[in-house]
C-alpha cells in the first residue's frame, strides 16, 4: 500500500531541501549537549567553581530547550493540527500523536527537567557532588540520551521512508544519522571515561567497559544506517571531536576558583587523548561486509572477539606511548593535569595505576570479549528492527 502519493511532504522528501527543519534543530540540540558536556568536565577540571549559568551548562540546557520546542510543536501539530502527512507518520501514545522519536525525545526532556530540582536538592542534602555518576546526574544523562535517541529515530524514520524512492535525501539523512550516531559514541565514551583514563589502560577494566558500551552501538548503527562504514564513521566523529577539544580548549586561559589546588592550572584542561577505537571499528566494518549471510549469533561471537583483540592490540602499546615523554606535547595532550591532581598521583607521575597481570588480565580480556559479543548481538537485533521503523 503506497501512501507516498497521498502524503508527499514529510514522508517522501523529494529534494534535499525537504529535510524538515526539526531534524536539523534536533541534530543541533545533540551537538550542543555533546559540546556542553565536554566543556563542563573541562570546567570542573580547570576552574572548578560552578554556577547554574556557566556557558557549559547553557550549552547542555540548550539541548533540552531545543528538543522541547521540537517535541511540543510536533505533538501539537500531530494531535490537533491538520497535517495529514505528519499524522500518517505518527504513533499514538496516551492519545497524543507524533512520530516515535518525538515521544522519546519528549521523555528525555521530562527526565532532564526532573533531574534539575532533584540535583539541586541533592547538593543541599549531601553536598555538591564531585563525581559524574550520582542518581540525579544519571537521570540527567538518561534524559539527554533519550533526546539523542529520539532525534535519531526522527532521522531514521524519515531515512527509511526515503530509502525506497529518494536516493538523495536518503544519503543526506544517512550522513546525518551517522553524525548523530558518532555523538552517541562520544556520549558512551564520556560515560566510561573514569575507566579509560590513560594510566589505567594496562588494566582489564577499560577493555571490559568499552566491550560492553561500544559494540552494541556500532552494530546498531551499522544495521540501521545501512552504511558499510557505519562503525568507522561514528568512531571517526568521536576521534575528531576529542582531538578538536585537545587542540582548542587549552587556548583559553583559566584559573582554579576552588581549593584544594594541588596543581596550578593556567588554561582550560582538555580531555585525555581519544582511545583508538577507530581501528577496531574499521575491523568490524570490514568483517561485517564479508559475513552478511551469517546468523546474528555467529556474527556477534566473531565480532566480540575481533573487537577486543584489535582494541587491545592497538591501545595497549599506544598507552605506553602516552605515558612516555614522547607524547608530552600539545597534540597528545599528556601535559595537562587537573587543578586537584595530586603530585603523588599516578596521573602526575605518569605511572600505571594498578596494572593487571596474568590471570586477572587475560581472564578480564576474555570476559571483555564475551561482553562485546553479547553487546554486538543486541546491537545487531536492535539495528535490524530499526530498519523497519517508518514513523
Amino acid at each position, binding site marked *: 500500500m503506497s501512501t507516498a502519493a497521498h502524503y508527499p511532504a514529510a514522508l517522501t522528501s523529494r529534494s534535499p531541501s525537504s529535510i524538515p527543519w526539526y531534524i536539523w534543530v534536533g541534530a543541533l540540540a545533540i551537538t550542543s549537549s555533546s559540546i556542553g558536556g565536554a566543556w563542563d568536565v573541562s570546567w570542573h577540571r580547570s576552574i572548578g567553581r560552578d554556577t547554574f549559568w556557566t556557558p557549559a551548562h547553557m550549552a547542555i540546557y540548550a539541548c533540552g530547550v531545543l528538543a522541547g520546542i521540537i517535541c511540543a510543536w510536533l505533538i501539537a501539530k500531530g494531535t490537533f493540527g491538520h497535517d495529514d502527512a505528519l499524522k500518517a507518520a505518527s*504513533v499514538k501514545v496516551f492519545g497524543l500523536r507524533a512520530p516515535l522519536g518525538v515521544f522519546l525525545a519528549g521523555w528525555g526532556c521530562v527526565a532532564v527537567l526532573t533531574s534539575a530540582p532533584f540535583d539541586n536538592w541533592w547538593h543541599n542534602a549531601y553536598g555538591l557532588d564531585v563525581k559524574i555518576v550520582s*542518581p540525579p546526574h544519571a537521570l540527567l544523562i538518561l534524559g539527554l540520551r533519550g533526546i539523542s535517541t529520539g532525534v535519531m529515530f526522527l532521522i531514521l524514520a524519515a531515512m527509511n521512508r526515503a530509502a525506497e524512492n529518494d536516493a538523495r535525501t536518503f544519503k543526506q539523512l544517512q550522513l546525518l544519522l551517522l553524525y548523530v550516531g558518532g555523538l552517541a559514541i562520544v556520549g558512551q565514551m564520556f560515560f566510561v571515561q573514569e575507566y579509560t583514563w590513560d594510566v589505567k589502560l594496562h588494566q582489564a577494566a577499560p577493555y571490559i567497559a568499552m566491550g560492553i558500551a561500544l559494540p552494541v552501538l556500532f552494530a546498531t548503527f551499522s544495521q540501521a544506517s545501512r552504511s558499510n562504514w557505519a562503525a568507522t564513521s561514528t568512531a571517526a566523529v568521536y576521534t575528531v571531536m576529542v582531538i578538536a577539544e585537545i587542540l582548542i580548549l587549552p587556548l583559553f586561559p583559566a584559573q582554579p576558583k576552588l581549593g584544594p589546588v*594541588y596543581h596550578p592550572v593556567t588554561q582550560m584542561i582538555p580531555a585525555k587523548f581519544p582511545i583508538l577505537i577507530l581501528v577496531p571499528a574499521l575491523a568490524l566494518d570490514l568483517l561485517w561486509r564479508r559475513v552478511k549471510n551469517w546468523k546474528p549469533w555467529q556474527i556477534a561471537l566473531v565480532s566480540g572477539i575481533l573487537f577486543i583483540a584489535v582494541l587491545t592490540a592497538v591501545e595497549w602499546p599506544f598507552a605506553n606511548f602516552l605515558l612516555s615523554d614522547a607524547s608530552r606535547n600539545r597534540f597528545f595532550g599528556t601535559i595537562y593535569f587537573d587543578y586537584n591532581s595530586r603530585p603523588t598521583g599516578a596521573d602526575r607521575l605518569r605511572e600505571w595505576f594498578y596494572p593487571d597481570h596474568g590471570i586477572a588480565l587475560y581472564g578480564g580480556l576474555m570476559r571483555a570479549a564475551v561482553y562485546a559479543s553479547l553487546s554486538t548481538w543486541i546491537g545487531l537485533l536492535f539495528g535490524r528492527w530499526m530498519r523497519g521503523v517508518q514513523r
Partner: protein
Amino acid sequence: MKWVLAFLVSLAVAVPAYAHVGSKDVYEELNAGPYKLFVTIRTPNVIPGVATVEVRSSGASISSLRITPTPLTGEASKHPPTSDAMQPSAADPAFYTGSLWIMAAGSWQVHFDVDGAAGKASSSVPVAAMPLSILPMRRSMGILLALLGILLIAGMAGIAAAAVGQSRLSPGSAPGPAAQRKARTAGAVALAITLLLVYGGYKWWNAEAESYAADLYHPLSLSPTLNGNALDLEIGRHDTDATHTFRARSNSDLLPDHGHVMHLYAIRQPGMDAVFHLHPTLASDKHLRMTLPSMPAGTYRLYGDIVHANGFPETLTADLIVPADMPGAPLASEDASAAPPALSQGELGTSYKLPDGYTMIWDRPQELHANTAYAFRFRLVDASGQPAADARPYLGMAGHAAFVKSDGTVFAHTHPEGSAAMQAMMLANGSPAEMADTGSMAGMDMTAAGSDPISPMVEFPYGFPSPGRYRIFIQMKHTNTVETGVFDADVR
C-alpha cells in the same frame, strides 16, 4: 527512603560541631596590619558546600578586601585558588560579605587580603569544615518528583508499546489485533524493566545516603575513669576505616594549645552550679591524667578541647560522676572554678560577685539574637569598685570564655581573638607550632609570675548558634588569682 532520611536526620540532630559543640561558626577579631576586622565565617552543613563570610572593619579604611580558602597544611596549602572580592554593604560601607566554597572536609584557612589607606596587609582565620547533617526533602518537592517520576515510568511503557505496535507500520495504516497484542506485551515488559531500574535507583540512592551519613562528623570518643580523685581520660579513635580518611582522625597527634594538650571544662548537671576549667596532662599519646581538685558530688558534663597536628580542633564530650566521698586536693595554679547559683534559681545579672571581693561585670547588649556576631565585653573591678589595677594574662590571654546552652547542646570555649583554636590560628598565620607551647609569642606569656599588668577589660567575639538560655563562664586573672565570673543570657 523515608525511614533512611528520618534516621539520618536523627543522627544529624545529635551531631556536635567539631571545634566546639553545636557551635560551628567562627567569630574572630583579626588585626591585619593597621586594619581591624571582625570576621564571621558560617561554615556549610554539607561538604562540599558554600561558607558565607562577613567582615566588619573598624581600623584603617579599606578599599578592597579579598578572601581565599586553602587547606591549613599540606601540599594544597601552597597553591591558593583565585581570590574572591568581598562586597561592601550599600547601607554600611564598613560591613563586607562574601562566600567561598569548601570542597573537602578537614582543616582549612580563609586568607584575607586587605588593601586600603594604610597599604596592603593580610591575615588568615582557621576554619574546621566537616559534613554535619543531611537536609530532609520537603513534602512539596517529594510530591513534585514523585509525579514527574510516575510520568516518566508510564511514558516509557507507552513509548515501548507504540514502538512495537505502530512504529514499523507503513504511514497511514492502522495496527491490526496482533500488533496491538504485541504492543500491550511490550508495554508491560517495558513497565517491568523500568520499575526494576527504579528499584535499582532506590537501592543506589540509599547506599549513597548511607555512605554520606557514615561520613558525617563525630568527635573522637572520651572515656573517663575515676580512681579516688585520679582521673584518667582515654581518647578513642573514632574510625580506622582507611577509605574514609578524613573521619579517621588520629588520637595521638595532639598539639598543645596555650601550653596544654587539653582544656577540660567540667560542668555539674543539671543546674550548671559548679564549673571547673582543668588541664589534664599527657600520660601516653592518647591517654591523659590529672588529680581532681575538691569537687561537689554530682554528675558532670566534660568538654575537652583538643587540637590535632593539622590544626583541626575538636571538643570531646563525656559524663563523669563524682561521688560524695571523693578525696579532695587544692586547685592547680592555672585551673579555675566557680560555684554559681543553679539555673533553676533564676537568671543571673550582669554583675557577678567573686569570692575575694572583686566583681566581674558584663556590658550586656540590650537584646541578644541568635546567629548574630557580638563582641561581648567583660570588666574586672576590685573591692573598691575601681577597675582592677593588678589584672594579669590567664594562660597567655586577657581572658577565656565558655558559652554553654542550658540543655547542653552548645559548648564553645573562646578567646579574645575569637572562637578559632589559638594553635590553628598560629598555623594559619605562619607561626611555628611550638610557639604556643613555649609562650614566646608577643602577649602570650604563659608564666603566672613576672608579667606586667594588663587592661582589666576583655572582649570575646561570639554569636549564639540558636535561641534559648545560655550560661557564660568568664575567666580573668589578677595577681595570682584566677577568677571565674558567671552570667546568664536569654537569646532570642
